[in-house]
C-alpha cells in the first residue's frame, strides 16, 4: 500500500476491473480499479483513451474566428468554448465589451449552465440512481401522492398522468426499443428506489426532454441560430431594436418577452421538479456517501458571470473564484491564471513529452507533443491494452495542477469555495438543503453532494438569469442599444504580438483558453478544460486527480456491474470530447467490463 502526497491510500494488489468505455458521457474514457476481497475499491486509474490536439488546428488562423472552431470541439459546451475564446481574444487585444453584451453573454452562459445541468441530471446521471424498468411496477395513485408530497407546486401530478406515462414507457420497453435505457444494470441491488419514486423520476426524465427544447431557444434568439449560435469578438452579434420594424433578426420586445417566459420556466422547473427530485432520490441514498475524493481537500474555480462588463475582480463575479488547498476551508486563495507559477500542466504520466521531464508548463508556453509509450507492467499490446501500468505514462489527458496541487473543479468545487468565502446565496442554499435532508456539512463531500450542488447551482443560475434579463431591459429602456465594440475589429489596429486568456465556468468546471497572437494570426492556443483537471492522471509527485480519488474506498455490490463507478464518474459530468480525442474503431457504446 502506498500513501499519495495528497493523502490517499492506494493498494493495487486486488482484483482488477476494467470499464471501457465509460458510457453516457461525451467522448471516450476508460477506468480501471482494483477491489479487495470485500469488493471495496482500493486503487483507481482513469484514462482518456484519445489523443488531443485541438491546439494545433488553430495555429495560423484568424483569432476572430477561433470561437467558431472551438464551438465544434464538443457537442455540449459549444457556447461555453465560444465565450471563452472571444474573452481570450478580447483580453489579448484590450477590447472592452458594452454593458448589453455582458448581460446577453451572461444570460446565454447561465442558460447553457441550466440546460446542461438539467440534461445531465435527467438524461445522463439519473439512471445511475433511478430504475425506469422498475417504474413499470409502480402504483400511479401512490406516485401521484408522492409527487404532491415532494413537489406540491408542480401541476403535473394526477394519477391519470402517471398512468399514461407508465403505459407509454411500457409500450416503449415492450417494443424492444429499450434504446436510451440500455446499458443499465436494472436488477442490481445498488438501486434503492421504490417503484413510485422510479416512475416519478422517469416521468420527469420525459418532462425535462420537453423543457430542454424550450431552454435552448434563448440561444437561437441571441445567437441567431442553434445548435451553433454565433459569437463575436467585441460583443454579441445581435442588434437590438425595440422601437419599430428595424433590421430583420434584431432583438425586439416580442423576442425579449419570449426570453423572459423561458427564464420563468427554468425557475419553475428547478424549484418544483429538479431540486425536489434530488432531495427525494437523495433521501433513499443517504447512506451512500462515497465519492468525495478531492472535494474536501482541494477545489478550484476561475469564477464567472461578471456583474459589470470587463471586470473580472473576484467580488464582482456571481459564480465565485478561488482555490482551496490542504483541506483548509478557512482560507480561500485568489487565482491568477496569468501567473506562470499557478496553473501548470504536467505530462509525466501522460502520453506527451516536454524537453525537460518533471517540469510543469504554463498554458501560454504549453506544448502538445505526443509520445505514446507503455510501462513495463502493462498487460496487452500497444493496440489492445488489457491493463494499464499507471506507474508509467497512461493517459492522453495532461495533468494540470494549481501550485502543484491536484484540484477538483465543477459545481461542487464552486459551491465549496462559495461556501468557504461566505457567498450569501450559496451558503443559504447549502444550509437549507442540509437541513431539509438532515445531513451534516461533511455529507457535501460526496458523489451525492456533487449531484446536489449541480441542482442548487441550476436554481441559482435561474435567478441570476432573471437578474441579467432585468438589467438588459432596463438598460435598453434607458436608450442604450449598443451590443458590440468594433473599434479594434481591424487587425491593423492590433499590436504585432499579444497574449491573452479567457476564463469561464463551464457547467462541468473551470475552463481556460490561452492565446498568443502574432502578426494578426494565432501563434499558440491552449485549452485547459474541466475534465483535464478532474480526469487528470497522476503527476510527478504521485498526487492523484479527482476521478481517481473519488472512486477510492467505494463498496461495490457486484464488481462485474460497475454501477457505483459510473455513478461517481457521472457525478462529475465528464466531457472527454474536448479533453481528449476520439476514437473507438467501432463506435458501439457498449461497455465491456472485464474482471481480472
Amino acid at each position, binding site marked *: 500500500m502506498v500513501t499519495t502526497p495528497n493523502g490517499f491510500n492506494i493498494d493495487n494488489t486486488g482484483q482488477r476491473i476494467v470499464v471501457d468505455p465509460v458510457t453516457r458521457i*461525451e467522448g471516450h474514457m476508460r477506468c480501471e480499479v482494483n477491489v479487495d476481497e470485500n469488493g471495496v475499491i482500493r486503487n483507481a486509474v482513469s484514462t482518456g483513451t484519445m*489523443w488531443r490536439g485541438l491546439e494545433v488546428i488553430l495555429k495560423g488562423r484568424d483569432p476572430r474566428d477561433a470561437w467558431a472552431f472551438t464551438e465544434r470541439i464538443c*457537442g455540449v459546451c459549444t457556447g461555453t468554448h465560444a465565450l471563452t475564446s472571444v474573452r481570450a481574444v478580447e483580453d489579448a487585444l484590450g477590447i472592452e465589451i458594452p454593458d448589453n453584451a455582458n448581460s446577453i453573454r451572461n444570460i446565454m452562459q447561465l442558460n447553457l449552465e441550466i440546460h446542461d445541468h438539467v440534461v445531465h441530471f435527467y438524461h445522463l446521471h439519473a439512471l445511475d440512481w433511478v430504475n425506469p424498468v422498475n417504474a413499470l411496477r409502480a402504483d400511479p395513485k401512490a406516485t401521484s401522492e408522492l409527487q404532491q408530497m415532494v413537489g406540491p407546486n408542480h401541476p403535473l401530478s394526477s394519477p391519470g398522468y402517471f398512468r399514461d406515462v407508465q403505459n407509454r414507457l411500457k409500450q416503449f420497453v415492450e417494443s424492444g426499443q429499450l434504446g*436510451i435505457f440500455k446499458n443499465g444494470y436494472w436488477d442490481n441491488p445498488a438501486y434503492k428506489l421504490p417503484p413510485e419514486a422510479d416512475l416519478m423520476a422517469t416521468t420527469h426524465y*420525459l418532462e425535462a426532454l420537453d423543457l430542454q427544447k424550450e431552454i435552448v431557444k434563448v440561444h437561437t434568439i441571441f445567437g441567431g441560430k442553434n*445548435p451553433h449560435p454565433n459569437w463575436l469578438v467585441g460583443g454579441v452579434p445581435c442588434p437590438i431594436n425595440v422601437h419599430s420594424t428595424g433590421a430583420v433578426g434584431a432583438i425586439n420586445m416580442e423576442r425579449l418577452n419570449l426570453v423572459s417566459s423561458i427564464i420563468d420556466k427554468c425557475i419553475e422547473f428547478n424549484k418544483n421538479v429538479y431540486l425536489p427530485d434530488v432531495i427525494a432520490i437523495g433521501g433513499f441514498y443517504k447512506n451512500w456517501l462515497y465519492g468525495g475524493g478531492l472535494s474536501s481537500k482541494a477545489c478550484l474555480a476561475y469564477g464567472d458571470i461578471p456583474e459589470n462588463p470587463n471586470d473580472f475582480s473576484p467580488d464582482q463575479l456571481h459564480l465565485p473564484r478561488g482555490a482551496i488547498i490542504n483541506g483548509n476551508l478557512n482560507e480561500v486563495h485568489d487565482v491568477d491564471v496569468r501567473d506562470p507559477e499557478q496553473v501548470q500542466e504536467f505530462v509525466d504520466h501522460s*502520453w506527451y513529452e516536454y524537453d525537460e521531464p518533471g517540469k510543469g508548463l504554463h498554458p501560454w508556453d504549453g506544448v502538445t507533443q505526443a509520445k505514446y509509450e507503455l510501462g513495463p507492467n502493462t498487460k496487452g499490446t500497444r*493496440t489492445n491494452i488489457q491493463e494499464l501500468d499507471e506507474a508509467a505514462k497512461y493517459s492522453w489527458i495532461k495533468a494540470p495542477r494549481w501550485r502543484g496541487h491536484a484540484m477538483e473543479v465543477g459545481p461542487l468545487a464552486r459551491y465549496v469555495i462559495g461556501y468557504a468565502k461566505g457567498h450569501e446565496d450559496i451558503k443559504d442554499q447549502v444550509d437549507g438543503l442540509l437541513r431539509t435532508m438532515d445531513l451534516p456539512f461533511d455529507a457535501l463531500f460526496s458523489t451525492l453532494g456533487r449531484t446536489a450542488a449541480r441542482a442548487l447551482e441550476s436554481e441559482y443560475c435561474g435567478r441570476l438569469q432573471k437578474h441579467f434579463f432585468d438589467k438588459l431591459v432596463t438598460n435598453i429602456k434607458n436608450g442604450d442599444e449598443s451590443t458590440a465594440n468594433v473599434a479594434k475589429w481591424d487587425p491593423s489596429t492590433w499590436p504585432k504580438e499579444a497574449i491573452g486568456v479567457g476564463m469561464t465556468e463551464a457547467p462541468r468546471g473551470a475552463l481556460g483558453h490561452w492565446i498568443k497572437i502574432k502578426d494578426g494570426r494565432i501563434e499558440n492556443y491552449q485549452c485547459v478544460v474541466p475534465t483535464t483537471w478532474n480526469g487528470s492522471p497522476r503527476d510527478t509527485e504521485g498526487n492523484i486527480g479527482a476521478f481517481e480519488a473519488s472512486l477510492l474506498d467505494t463498496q461495490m455490490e457486484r464488481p462485474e456491474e460497475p454501477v457505483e463507478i459510473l455513478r461517481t464518474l457521472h457525478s462529475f459530468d465528464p466531457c472527454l*470530447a474536448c479533453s481528449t480525442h476520439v476514437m473507438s474503431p467501432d463506435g458501439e457504446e457498449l461497455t465491456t467490463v472485464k474482471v481480472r
Partner: protein
Amino acid sequence: MAQQVLILGIGNVLWADEGFGVRCVETLADQWSFPDNVKLLDGGTQGLYLLPFLEEADVLIVFDAVDYGLTPGTMKIVKNEEVPAFMGAKKMSLHQTGFQDVIATAQLMGYCPDELLLIGCQPEELEDYGGGLRDVVAAQIPAAIEIALDRLAELQITPTRGEGDKSNLADPSILRSAYEDGRPSEEEAYRKGDDRFLTLSAK
C-alpha cells in the same frame, strides 16, 4: 398543409471525412433555394439540441459519413425503420447522444418524423484532426445531393437554382473552403494521432 422537410447534415467538420454530412447541406444551400417548408440544418455533433427540429419535421433527410468498412466513397442509402440501427453501428460517436439516441428519444416522445432517409457515404479518413474532406468523399457530394433532390421531387417539392437560406449553416470561417484553405501546414500543425486508433487510415 405542405409536408415539413428537414434536411440535416451531421458530423464533426474538424475530423476530415466526418464532415461529409455538413458539407453536403452547405453545398445544397449554395446551389438551390427551397420553399419555406424545407429547412436546411448543420447539426454538427449535437444530440438533444436537435430534438426541436425533428419535432417540426414530417420528413427527415440526413446526410452523414457512415463507416461500414466499404470502399471509401461508397454511398449507402437507408430508409425509415432501418435508419437508427444503421447509424448506431460502426459509427464513431463524438456525440453525447448519438443520433440513433436522438431518434429513439423522438420516438419515445411521439414526435419522430414519419419518413427517414439516410444518405450515407463511406469515409476514407477520419483520423486527421483539423483536416478536410478527402477527394473520393468530396466527389460524392453531387451524387448525394441528387438523391435528396430526387426524393424531394417525389414529394412535389421543386427548388429553384441559386443560393438558398444559409441561416442554419456554419459560420463562414468554418465553411468548407475557408476551413480547408486556411489549414496550417503539416510542419506547423502536429498531426500524429493515437496509433492504437489509426488502423482505419491508409498509412
